[in-house]
Structure formats: structure tokens, C-alpha cells
């Protein structure tokens, strides 16, 4: 089944390479996306509901942690792929793309999804590294897809900075490999998570310390930790919106996933104080560093991108603080942010497409232009800002509580304050866009369509995360957290 999860998007990607015409590509895309989504859902729920942890496959493994990621990729990835159909149609109509490019776009999109699945399913540190590097390469092509100056610039910065970062991560992997081989004694299994965790306590601490630094710098670049985040606002703002949604909603999570894995390993080898403290520092830096950019911003997609930096900071901080509350908060936030931010990027993308501009001052009166999409946009913006009844509020509260407990009142207060100030920035721009009058040259109103359902579904999930989580979901989270507090050993 795990292989199916990888093969479905790959196969879809291959199909899209054939010159079939945009109708057929769309159909293939929808089919492939749904198939992949179902497979992802099956795989992850299999872990949670049946408790069936598949560790028989070579190189691939799915445990509680990766199941969460698979679930996120499944939901967000499928939504984005489906949303792409209408997005590309309107791009085609506006003459931004040629029909030939449509097929290539779908192909790359599915390839991108496949590499992300590989990254979270990989049992092998090296395979994971390769997969993550591949996500960079593929998504860089997607970022630069429009081929204009800005897109190329963004893509170039993205690929160069991430490649450099990832190179450092390789050093960390080599050091881990060396440390693990000293304990496990065999080449073949020394890079495998499932063999590494049980012996983690025996790994050499000073080596693991250094390894973690390299890993943090490496995957941290990919995750967008401040000050390694520099590629992120460029890439997110220039990519086609469904790609931005994927980048922000899932790709960052894949990198965070890698960091979590290594953090668990390092914690057991070195003790809590080292990697936890580093993560706390980087988490806070990301939150605080992104804040000024959110307060003073003109480009809506850059605004959202910086907000992603901030939220990555929150997740990393939650991981760094640890404990049941910290992990619960971080995992919930991982899920919630993915849901909220992808909806936000998709709706913002549609708005930007309609206005032919991404500049906030130009996007006046969104409520009159696209009543439904703009309401979704507002709701998800509030969600991202951390307002109830959306899930992010709860996850932030969990992290904050842990912050007050483990880091003292000062840390908790700074954390809450930064989030609140970010909220003010977001609500300021939201107010400017929503509570204003639409220039006369735009047509008004829109029809309810399948796209809106695609946007509303994650939003409903978010609300459920914020006020009523069914018992099953609570169990699911509890399982992941207990997996993490146990140090990743199953």
C-alpha cells in the first residue's frame, strides 16, 4: 500500500507528460489526486485505527508521526491538486500560460507530491535526504513556472539557498551514520530510523550534538527558520497559488518532520537540554523575526509567507518545549497550519488572479468582488491569526501553556505577545481589503462552485479542531504524542 501511495502520483505525473490536451490532463489530474488522497487516507488511518504499523517494507515505514504527515499531505495535497484545475483554466484564459504548459504543470505537481510522500515515508535517513532535495528541485521548477523575471529570481534563490542548506544536512547525516555504525555495527541498518531509535541513548553525545547543528541548519533552511528563511517569502509569493499552498502547507511540514525526527534522536542521545533549547531559540527567533514583515507589508502572498515563517516558529517552539502539552500543541499546530494556510493561499490566489495584482492596496472591496471566496479568505485569515473557533487557537494555547511551564512567564508572555501582534497585522490588512469599496471597473458577485467546497472542507475541519474534536481525533493526537514522548520507539 505504501508503494501505491508513491506510485499513484508518479504514475499520474508520467501520464501528464503525454500530449493529450488540457481536458484529458485535467481528468487525469483529478483522478490521480483522488486516488492518491484515498491511498494516503487509508495508509494513515490504518496506523491510527487499526494500529497496524507497517515496517515490513524496505526503505519505507509508516508510524504514528509519519502517518500524521501523510494525512496532512493527503488532505492538503489533494485539495490543492483539485483546485489547480480551475486555477489553470483561468490562467489559460488570461493568457498567462500556454496549453502545452498545463500538462507539464500537472506532471510536476504530482511529482512534487510524490517526493513529499517519499520524504515522510522514508525509513532511511539518506533516502529522506534525497527525497527532500528532490522536492526542492521539482518545486523550484514550479516556482519558476511563469518564467517571468520575478518568478525566475524566486526560483533561483529558492534552489540555491535550499541546496546549500540541504548540503549541510548531509554532513549531519554522515555524522549520525558514523555514530550509529559504532553502535549498530552494520552499514545497512545504521541509517534506518527503526533501528536507530532503540539504540539512540547509546549514540555518542558530542557527535550527535554536532550532527544536530548541521541538521538544524540544513533542514531549518528548508523549513524556513529565521534567519535561514530568506528564500521562503520569494518562492511563496511568486509560485502559482496552488503551489504556494503546497509549499507552505506541506513542504515546510516535511522539513519540520525531519527536524522532529532528529530532535527525538538527539534528545535521547544528548539529553533534553541541547536540542530542545536550540529549537526554542530558533522558534522564538522565527516568530519575532517574521513579525515586522507582517506589520509592514504590501504583497498579500508575502504577508502569508512571513506568517508561515512565524507559524513554523510556533511549531518548532512547541517541539523544543516538549512535554505532552508542547508536543500536542506542535502536532495540532502542524495540522491546523497546513489546513488553514493552504486555504488561505488558495483563496488569496483566486483573489489575486481576479485583481491581476498581489498588492494589498489594489485589492479593495474583496467582499463585493468575490463574496464567497473573500469570506473564506477572511475566515482563514482569522484562523491563521489564531482566533477561535479555529484550531490554531487551541494549538497555540497548548504551546503557550507549555511555554509558561517550561520556559517561565517571560517566554510564554513573549510567545503570546508576538502572536497577538501578528494578529493585529493580519486583521489590519484584512480590514483594508474587506472593509472597503470595490473600484467600479470590476464585475461583482460569483457563483457557488465546487471550488468553494474545496475551500470550505478544510475550514470546517479547522473549526472542528477548534471547538469540538471527536474522540477519535483526540485519540489520534494522543497516540502521536505518546509516540513522541516515548522517544520515537515503537
Amino acid at each position, binding site marked *: 500500500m505504501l508503494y501505491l501511495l508513491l506510485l499513484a502520483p508518479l504514475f499520474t505525473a508520467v501520464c501528464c507528460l503525454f500530449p493529450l490536451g488540457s481536458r484529458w490532463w485535467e481528468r487525469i489530474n483529478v483522478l490521480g489526486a483522488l486516488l492518491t488522497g484515498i491511498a494516503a487516507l487509508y495508509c494513515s488511518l490504518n496506523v491510527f485505527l487499526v494500529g497496524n504499523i507497517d515496517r515490513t517494507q524496505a526503505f519505507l515505514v509508516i508510524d504514528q508521526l509519519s502517518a500524521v504527515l501523510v494525512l496532512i499531505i493527503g488532505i492538503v495535497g489533494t485539495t490543492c491538486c483539485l483546485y489547480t484545475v480551475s486555477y489553470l483554466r483561468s490562467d489559460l484564459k488570461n493568457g498567462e500560460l500556454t496549453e502545452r504548459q498545463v500538462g507539464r504543470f500537472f506532471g510536476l505537481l504530482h511529482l512534487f507530491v510524490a517526493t513529499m510522500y517519499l520524504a515522510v515515508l522514508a525509513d*532511511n535517513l*539518506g*533516502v529522506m*535526504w*534525497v527525497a527532500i*532535495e*528532490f522536492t*526542492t*528541485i521539482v518545486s*523550484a*521548477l514550479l516556482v*519558476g513556472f511563469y*518564467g*517571468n*523575471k*520575478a518568478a*525566475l*529570481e*524566486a*526560483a*533561483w*534563490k529558492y*534552489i*540555491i539557498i535550499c*541546496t*546549500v542548506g540541504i*548540503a*549541510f544536512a*548531509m*554532513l549531519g547525516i*554522515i*555524522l549520525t*551514520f*558514523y555514530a550509529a*555504525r559504532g553502535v549498530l555495527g552494520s*552499514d*545497512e541498518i545504521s*541509517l534506518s530510523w527503526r533501528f536507530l531509535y532503540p539504540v539512540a541513548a547509546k549514540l*555518542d553525545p*558530542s*557527535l550527535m*550534538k*554536532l550532527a544536530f547543528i548541521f541538521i538544524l541548519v540544513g533542514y531549518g533552511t528548508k523549513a524556513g527558520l529565521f534567519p535561514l528563511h530568506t528564500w521562503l*517569502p*520569494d518562492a511563496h*509569493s*511568486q509560485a502559482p497559488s496552488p503551489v504556494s499552498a503546497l509549499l507552505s502547507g506541506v513542504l515546510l511540514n516535511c522539513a519540520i518532520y525531519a527536524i522532529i525526527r532528529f530532535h527525538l534522536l538527539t534528545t535521547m542521545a544528548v539529553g533534553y537540554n541541547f536540542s530542545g533549547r536550540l529549537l526554542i531559540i530558533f522558534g522564538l527567533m522565527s516568530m519575532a523575526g517574521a513579525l515586522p*514583515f507582517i506589520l*509592514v*507589508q504590501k504583497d498579500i502572498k*508575502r504577508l502569508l509567507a512571513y506568517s508561515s515563517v512565524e507559524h513554523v516558529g510556533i511549531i518548532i517552539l512547541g517541539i523544543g518545549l516538549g512535554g505532552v502539552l508542547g508536543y500536542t500543541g506542535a502536532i495540532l499546530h502542524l495540522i491546523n497550519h497546513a489546513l488553514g494556510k493552504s486555504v488561505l493561499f488558495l483563496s488569496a490566489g483566486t483573489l489575486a488572479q481576479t485583481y491581476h495584482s498581489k498588492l494589498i492596496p489594489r485589492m479593495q472591496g474583496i467582499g463585493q468582488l468575490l463574496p464567497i471566496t473573500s469570506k473564506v479568505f477572511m475566515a482563514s485569515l482569522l484562523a491563521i491569526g489564531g482566533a477561535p473557533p479555529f484550531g490554531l487557537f487551541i494549538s497555540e494555547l497548548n504551546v503557550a501553556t507549555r511555554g509558561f511551564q517550561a520556559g517561565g512567564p517571560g517566554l510564554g508572555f513573549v510567545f503570546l505577545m508576538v502572536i497577538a501582534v501578528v494578529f493585529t497585522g493580519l486583521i489590519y490588512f484584512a480590514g483594508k481589503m474587506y472593509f472597503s469599496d470595490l473600484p467600479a471597473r470590476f464585475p461583482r458577485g460569483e457563483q457557488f462552485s465546487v471550488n468553494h467546497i474545496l475551500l470550505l472542507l478544510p475550514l470546517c475541519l479547522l473549526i472542528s479542531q477548534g471547538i469540538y474534536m471527536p474522540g477519535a481525533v483526540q485519540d489520534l493526537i494522543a497516540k502521536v504524542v505518546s509516540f513522541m514522548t516515548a522517544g520515537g520507539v515503537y
Partner: protein
Amino acid sequence: MLDFFTYVFLIAGFLMLAGKVITNNITLLAIQSLALSIIAFYLGLSGGAVNWHMVLIGGLTFAVKVIVLPWILYRLVDKVAARRVVPLSIGLGSSSLIGVLLVGLTYSYVVPVLLKEVQVGGQLLPVALSTVLLGCFFMISRRSALSQLIGVIVMENGLFLCGIAVTGGMPLIIEFGIFFDLLVGALVMGIMTYQIRDTFDTLDTKFLNKLKH
């Protein structure tokens, strides 16, 4: 023998920092890669039994990094680089100085202090780490897209040497993966360089600054 090629490896990396003509940099890259493949061959063949793993890595390195990539790069230079001289963001003098500092840092601090648990004799480890850092710094100090591509490959070289030095090579399939990755990455970056040249009429990254704040 091993030390000699190790030094060649390091010096090639270092000389890159000191020069600003792009073709020379590519040549140096090829020389460095050659040194890397020779080291791999040496390690693979010098022991009692032949270590096929190492030999394979050496062969691959030779094929990809000594022949294919430099060839692609030369072609790219021919096609896109109007000027052979690369614009700098940090002057040659100071960048050489910083290069020395980096090598010093690795030799005096990173390897003896931080990596004292790693039981690898000789120059391999410090040279490998220095090269990674030098490659990164090379990218910082050059403002040309092509140079940044070269820098990435230099860093990869350092990584490979590091892998060889510390672990005697990663599992084979992973090495393959990394190679494939590198090749595709370099290709994509090459295509992008080409596009940048087409769109911006220059490779100078100074002009890649429209996206800010």
C-alpha cells in the same frame, strides 16, 4: 599519495576563491573532482581486498564530475556568459583571507574539538569540512549565477570526501540517489541559468534583487 591528492583537493578549492575568471574555476572544479575520484580509487584499491564500493564511487565521480558536469558548464559559459570575469561581492583579497580563516577554523577547532570522537586519521576530514565551508563561502563571495552553481558542486565534493573519510562511503543505493540528485539538480540549475540569462540579459545576481522585504 593520499595526502598529496587531499591537498590537491583542498588547494583546488582554495584557488577558486582566489580567481575571478569563470573558465578557470570550472577547470579547478574538474581538477578537484579528479582528485576526489583518485582518492576514492585509492581507498578502494589500496587495501587488501578490493573495495568495489569505493571503486564504483570513484568511477561515478570521474564520469559525472570530471567529464559530464565540466563539459556542461563549459557549454553554458560559451552560450550564456558574455564576460568571463565574475563580479564579486567580497573582494579577492579579503575572500582569500576569510578562506584561510575558515580552513584554520576547521583545523584548529571543528575537527580537534568538536569532532574529537571521530577516529579518522590524516587530512581527509578537515580537508573535507574545509571544502564544504569554502564552497559555501565561494557562493557568498561570487555574484554570478554560474559561480553559485559551481559552488554547489564544490560543496557536494566536500560532502563526498567527508562521507568517504568518516564512514568509508554510505550505503550504495544512497550514494546513487545522491548522485542522481546532484545531476538533476545541476541540470535544473543549468536550465535556470539559461533562462535567467534569457530574461535578465545577465547572470549577475545583483540584478536578482527585485523581491525584497
